[in-house]
């Protein structure tokens, strides 16, 4: 079957923190098969806005066939989204891109002679924390132990929902808040001594870079997967608008810089592939 843009029903569109919304979209073709780290293109209604807006998948209700996105209102396209009420229509296409690779986590957890459970560490910053929900669910289902470290500027969101999965959840904020760690995610991880076998991160580029350094000082950034952002035009691989320099090991063992498309070859890459 060919992929397409569908006009779907908005089942839910709630402001969960100031300027942050969660949208539920009825999308049977996608809810079944979407994997953590993949994204959806939302096509704006206004004629003057011509390009799709990409959003990582937050959660999927496979029974009700609903996908959930969490988005921050930052411009015209997201403002249009925020104005949609329950029952409105939205043009959407996906899932797009490659999600997080969970094979190593699954194989590790399934190994019979393991001494201790596989420890996975999930790190998110701002709206980048959104994609950790589905990821945590799948990693827990695979049998790994999950610690999620969430960083926000001021207003945390999504932590309770994550805790319900069974993950251990640590929260940090840049501006002092009651009862949460004051500082950034790496400070928070140092503070609580968080390390793991495998790391997964999504958030602003400077945060990802700091996380990569953190993982390297505690081991090897081949154990880290990061979800990158890039300005996109098409979101499905044809325009090269998102094409980013990446390190690639050649057959002769040497590393070379090649360009990869964030939308199609990513958005998830291994930490040691990224030209930081």
């Amino acid at each position, binding site marked *: 079957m*060919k992929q397409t843009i569908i006009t779907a029903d908005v089942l839910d569109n709630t402001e969960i923190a100031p300027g942050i919304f969660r949208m539920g979209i009825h999308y049977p073709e996608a809810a079944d098969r979407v994997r953590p780290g993949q994204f959806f293109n939302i096509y704006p209604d206004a004629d003057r*806005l011509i390009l799709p807006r990409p959003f990582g998948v937050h959660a999927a209700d496979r029974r009700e066939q609903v996908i959930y996105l969490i988005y921050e209102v930052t411009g015209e396209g997201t403002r249009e989204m925020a104005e949609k009420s329950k029952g409105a229509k939205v043009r959407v296409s996906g899932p797009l891109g490659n999600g997080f690779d969970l094979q190593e986590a699954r194989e590790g957890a399934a190994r019979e002679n393991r001494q201790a459970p596989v420890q996975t560490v999930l790190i998110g910053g701002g709206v980048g924390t959104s994609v950790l929900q589905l990821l945590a669910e799948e990693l827990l289902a695979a049998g790994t132990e999950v610690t999620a470290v969430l960083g926000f500027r001021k207003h945390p969101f999504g932590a309770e929902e994550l805790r319900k999965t069974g993950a251990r959840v640590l929260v940090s904020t840049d501006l002092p808040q009651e009862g949460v760690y004051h500082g950034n995610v790496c400070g928070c991880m140092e503070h609580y001594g968080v390390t793991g076998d495998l790391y997964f991160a999504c958030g602003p580029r400077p945060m990802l870079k700091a996380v990569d350094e953190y993982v390297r000082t505690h081991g090897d950034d081949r154990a880290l997967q990061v979800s990158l952002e890039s300005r996109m035009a098409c979101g499905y691989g*044809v*325009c090269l*608008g*998102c094409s980013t320099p990446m390190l690639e090991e050649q057959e002769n063992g040497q590393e070379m810089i090649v*360009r990869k498309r964030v939308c199609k070859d990513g958005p998830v890459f291994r930490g040691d592939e990224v030209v930081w």
Partner: protein
Amino acid sequence: MAKLDKKAVELGIDLRVDVAGVSFSNPVMTASGTFSPQDSSAYYDLSELGAAVTKGVSAEPWSGNDLPRIAETYGGMLNSIGLENKGAAAYIRDTLPFLSRYDTKIICNLAGHSVEEYVRVAEMLRDCPEIDLFELNISCPNVSEGGMLFGTDPAMAEAVTSAVRKVVDRPLIVKLTPNVTDITVIAKAAEHAGADAVSLINTLMGMRIDLKTRSAVLSRKTGGFSGPAIKPVALRMVWETARAVQIPVIGIGGITKGTDVVEFLAAGASAVEVGTAALMDPAAVVRIKSELIEYMAENGFRSIAELKQAFSV
């Protein structure tokens, strides 16, 4: 025989067009840089296309410009990709075998920094049997040497066209830039140098400034402006050019629906290419083709020639 559109045949509509001695199943083609055989084919059957026009290919791989390369504008967009491509060898190895599985014409878009580079890529590709036509891009605004430079000077346009003409025996389309005072001068130069057709327009030079970061949005500062907002300019230039040259004109610029195609045909185009619309909707080319068929059915046109004759512009 190219694949005929089923719906058109049922309605008794003949969508075929001849351009530069090649017969196309319909006049709706992709535009270079907004189509990738593998990725686009996830959304529609490529045999639906009048032609598949591929991304600009150079003799050696080019890595293109730094990010950000994309900015949205009112009803349009800017790009500064800079002709990133994997080079002619990869094109022969990956792109052509994939595309040749489909029943459509293949138009290979050529890029270079100098006459020598254009000739070299043409030499590397001239013997590929899969390629039906070449489209010489002398109009990319996003590379510092070559590219658009050749399309803004009639003597240089003529020089590069005749140099490539000598190398390839397949029909040669020359793709023109709108960033000139009089596009018909360049079109005539290309015609004089042996072009079999011209295609226009490539992108207009544009710019956007971000008030938050207080700098240009694109890392290269300026970029190519495309999409629905540029259609009136493109249409005017196609109309001017069609009256100035004897060779066929392929219309490009801001086409997003079937009636846009009608306008370009009415202005004198023999066929059209659809670019940015494919970023706004991956299957746009196919939708636009069926809207064209619907328009023709509603207005009783049984062929493209009949449609064109009905207009006096």
